[in-house]
């Protein structure tokens, strides 16, 4: 909670003070209204009657005064509402921006270790809870507290005895609603659980609907659905019934309290005890409703406040995650792309090494292929070059200097990566290409597109390069998306191009085209290719065969084929002649 205040600057604290003052003034109008009623009934009307029933001047004055009070309080309400909108929205904007900014700077490890949905929920659910807290819970809580205090003081001042009745009956109301509230919560939790089960099932069967149809298992699915749907009906019925009962129960318990005040106050007034007048009874009756409802709403708020606190906790947890550090100071200028691995060992989890003492060299201008079965450590090896992870032992040299010396930004810009999973952004095709190099002109982007065979289909799209790339609806196929991601890497003009199974979702013919265009742009560029498809690496200058984190063979295709070792085995397995 305290930490949230760090988001308030001086201007906001000043405004917040104004807000609290305005809420206070607005809340006190309840007290003013009942005092007005009391004065009217007990003082002004009898005064008119005793003066002969003609001089209404006193009443007119008090009515006008009261109207003034009402107008002023409405003005206060308007002021605090408008100020609060501004304050809360500024804060929430800052928090969101901070979260996103921070998220971008977290190490890759964080993304590997945390569930995607959990991170997402910090931005959506938790941020919304915080927003609710600022826009609603906070001003309401202040208002309720002021109302309760003000009314209580006035009540005590008017009649301590009747106040006693109010407080005693209030305890009864709070206890019974608390019981109901507990029941409510339990039922709600149950409902949420069954709803989660049904939603999960629905999602699964809709996503897999095409498979259901192929195997015509509609009946089984319908039976399972009916069962879950029935469960949900049961829990919803209960939860909804209890939740709906809250309103008539609290409302009518309030009415009973009303009756008690009237009876007790009435008897006291008749007996002449405690100086009770009709005006005071009327004032009590009027104040009582806002008093009771303020207290029960404040009690309900405890929940919202603890939720907001938990949400804020999760948000600040994210903000407290340590950013990716960058101790490098050297800026990598005019990189040549000379890479050297010296006895590099690495493990994600201590005790299960992924790479073991790997040493090799990539000479500038050469094409090196990494080969090996899944889990051999190829992807890991590639991600070490850009320092997405740091080596445990050994060192990696880029142009003869340990990569830890360089700033990460300059290092990563020098080593372009085309990943296996294509991630494009909801922007125009051109902007997606420009993502690789913010300074690239339109012409540079388009020429990169031409070099990577993007131009051919881009010009056929309805909006050409301005076509916005969205999920599945933009008419761009998986292979084409892959091509765009290659164009994106191309426009970055990195000294070293790392292709991580880059062409695995492109068909062989397109792959051939890409290989051709890559060959032309790779003339003076170093490249490291990871692929299942051995055909793509046949023309590599050097092939590194990786097994279980160790290099087992190196050499070019012909050399390795003649060796009749692991490479030969892999190759013949994939392209074995059936005849």
């Amino acid at each position: 909670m305290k930490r949230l205040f760090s988001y308030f600057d001086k201007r906001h604290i000043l405004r917040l003070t104004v807000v609290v003052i305005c809420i206070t003034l607005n809340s006190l109008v309840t007290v003013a209204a009942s005092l007005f009623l009391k004065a009217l009934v007990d003082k002004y009307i009898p005064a008119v009657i005793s003066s002969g029933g003609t001089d209404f001047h006193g009443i007119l004055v008090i009515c006008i005064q009261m109207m003034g009070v009402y107008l002023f309080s409405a003005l206060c309400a308007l002021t605090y509402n408008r100020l609060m909108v501004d304050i809360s929205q500024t804060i929430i904007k800052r928090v969101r921006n901070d979260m996103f900014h921070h998220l971008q700077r977290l190490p890759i490890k964080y993304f590997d270790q945390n569930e995607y949905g959990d991170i997402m929920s910090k931005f959506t659910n938790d941020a919304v809870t915080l927003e609710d807290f600022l826009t609603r819970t906070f001003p309401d809580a202040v208002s309720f507290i002021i109302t309760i205090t003000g009314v209580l003081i006035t009540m005590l001042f008017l009649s301590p005895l009747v106040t006693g009745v109010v407080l005693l009956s209030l305890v009864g109301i709070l206890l019974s609603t608390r019981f109901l509230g507990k029941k409510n919560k339990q039922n709600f939790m149950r409902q949420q659980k069954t709803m989660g089960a049904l939603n999960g099932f629905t999602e699964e069967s809709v996503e897999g609907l095409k498979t259901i149809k192929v195997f015509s298992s509609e009946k089984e699915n319908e039976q399972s659905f009916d069962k879950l749907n029935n469960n949900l009906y049961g829990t919803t019925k209960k939860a909804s019934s209890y939740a709906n009962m809250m309103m008539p129960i609290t409302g009518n318990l309030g009415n009973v309290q009303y009756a008690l005040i009237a009876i007790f106050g009435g008897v006291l007034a008749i007996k002449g005890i405690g100086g009770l007048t009709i005006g005071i009874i009327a004032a009590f009756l009027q104040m009582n409703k806002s008093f009771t409802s303020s207290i029960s709403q404040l009690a309900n708020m405890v929940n919202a406040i603890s939720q907001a606190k938990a949400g804020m906790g999760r948000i600040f947890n994210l903000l407290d995650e340590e950013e990716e550090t960058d101790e490098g100071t050297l800026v990598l200028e005019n990189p040549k792309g000379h890479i050297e691995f010296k006895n590099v060992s690495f493990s994600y989890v201590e005790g299960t090494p992924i790479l073991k003492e790997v040493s090799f060299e990539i000479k500038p201008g050469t094409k090196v292929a990494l080969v090996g079965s899944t889990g051999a450590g190829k992807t890991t090896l590639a991600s070490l070059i850009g320092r997405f992870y740091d080596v445990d032992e050994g060192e990696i040299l880029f142009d003869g200097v340990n990569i830890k010396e360089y700033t990460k930004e300059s290092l990563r810009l020098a080593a372009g990566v085309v990943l296996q999973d294509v991630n494009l952004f909801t922007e125009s095709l051109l902007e997606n290409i420009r993502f690789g190099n913010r300074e690239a002109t339109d012409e540079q982007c388009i020429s990169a597109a031409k070099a990577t065979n993007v131009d051919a289909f881009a010009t056929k799209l309805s909006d050409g390069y301005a076509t916005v790339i969205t999920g599945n609806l933009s008419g761009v196929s998986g292979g084409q998306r892959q091509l765009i991601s290659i164009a994106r890497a191309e426009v970055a003009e990195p000294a070293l191009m790392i292709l991580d199974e880059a062409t695995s979702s492109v068909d062989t013919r397109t792959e051939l085209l890409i290989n051709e265009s890559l060959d032309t742009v790779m003339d003076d560029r170093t490249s490291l290719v990871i692929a299942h498809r051995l055909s793509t690496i046949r023309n590599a200058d050097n092939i590194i065969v990786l097994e279980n984190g160790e290099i087992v063979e190196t050499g070019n295709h012909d050399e390795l084929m003649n060796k009749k070792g692991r490479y030969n085995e892999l190759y013949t397995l994939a392209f074995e002649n059936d005849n």
Partner: protein
Amino acid sequence: MLKRLYKYSEGYKRETYLASILVVLEIFFDVLIPYIIARLIDDGVTGGSVRLVHIYGALIIAASVVSLVFGAFSAKCAGKASAGFAANLRAAMYEKILHFSYRDIDEFSASSIVTRMTTDTNNLRNSYLMLVRIAFRAPSMFIFSVAMVIAVGGKIVLIYCVLIPLLVAVVLSLMKATREKYKKVYAAYDKINLKIAENLRGIRVVKSFAAEDRESKKFEESTQEVYDNFTSAEKLLAFSFPFMQITVNTSLIIISWIASHWIVAGTFTPGELTSLISYSMQIFMSARLFITVSSSIAQSQETARRCLELIDHEVEDKSNGDSFDEKNYDLKFDDVSFNYFAYKDATDSSNAISNVSFNIKSGETIGVIGPTGCGKSTLALLMANLYEATDGKVTLGGKDINGISSTDLRHNVVVVLQQSILFSGTVRDNLVNGLSKAEQGEDLDERIKTALTLAKAEFVYELEGGLDYDLSQSGTNLSGGQRQRICIARALLRNPKIIIFDDSTSAIDAMTEKAIRENLHKSLPDATKIFISQRIASVKGCDRIIVLDNGTVDAIGESKELLNTSKVYADIYSTQIGGAAI
């Protein structure tokens, strides 16, 4: 639309009516209370009768209890009715989507179907609840209160004739003025969420291109957009609460002023004044309630439309088609074209495949190869009639495939889809679901074992519980290769006449794939086997290979032949196998 939706309260109509009637009764007793208070003050306190104070006090308590009981019962009925309504609606939707064809699924999209069945339905349940409870509560409170005001204060009721319409008009116009802005707010929220989602998925790309700052800047543009629209909307809407306060309080002042004159004149009492004040509050409260309800019900119109659209969607029932002749299962394509977008006002008129003709004889082994996007997968779906051809004719054993009963077709033509989709439940459920009791037979476990062995999926028996191993949602607790092998076993268990593999071995290593293929030839000698792939090795040994390019048939023939007759095939071959082999 209401009427259409009302149908789904079937079985809960009694509760629906009861809830509404009970609400009215609840309010009736609630509204009596201020009047009794007035009598208590005037006859009891002013009149100096303790007995009357007690009697009227007891009456108030009695009225409260009665109102509470009615209210609680109404709540219970409303809870049941709304839950039942939602359950009916969901069941109707689920039943409908199970009859959806592939084309219907595409038209709605999976995510949209899920939203309609979950979030939308739940929102409609809330609206139903509100309609049953508050839609009756607000007007009856209003009517009863106004009636009481007339009874107690006569002409004073005229105040409301001016103030209430004014209040409603101002608040509604404020809401209307802000509606567009709120729409923009939601659109900006969507943008924010999309940005976060894309950056989470693509964090490696962002980092690789050192694009963190750029992305942050774009993100800040969206949050600024939310801020701008939200604050301007809320600042406008901030007028409504003070305005409400002013109207309520103005009415109180006017009432006080007029009542003072009457009291002085001796025709009115302080007790009646307090009751008028209470009624005045209630009238405004009901007006406010009415505004909230009507706007939220107006908002649910769109939701209702979305749900009904799904339920009303017409589906074709093909389960009563011709039975399928088991001897001849030649699969023939005659000048077939297909367009995925044919159901829309065809903005995209390009065919996925065009003028495709071939004849696959019973028992043949066929390979289909071609570049991505050439229409291979489409061909698989048309072969199993999961989509209907837009033009041309597909026949199975000489019969139009559209006329064949869908049940017969599904049991004899099985596709192993590209995506290996499994469901939560046991491995056994996944394999067996869809088979009737008769088809399951007595030696089911034996046959499952055979199918799993053929598909090289014996690993199942090593899992905890073996066939009863519980899969998580979408089977994510198995590896991709394991899922694919179970999917193949699931298809084999059906002992189909035609089996189509649509690139369904991508996560299986070459050696295992080869073994599975050999098993197929041995165990299903009579079945037509169709292998769709991008890999030469997968189709090379087939009797005939169909080479697709750009949605048309480039050539059909044996591998050796094709090297000479098809440039497309030769290209693919040389990329994968290399020039030396030619």
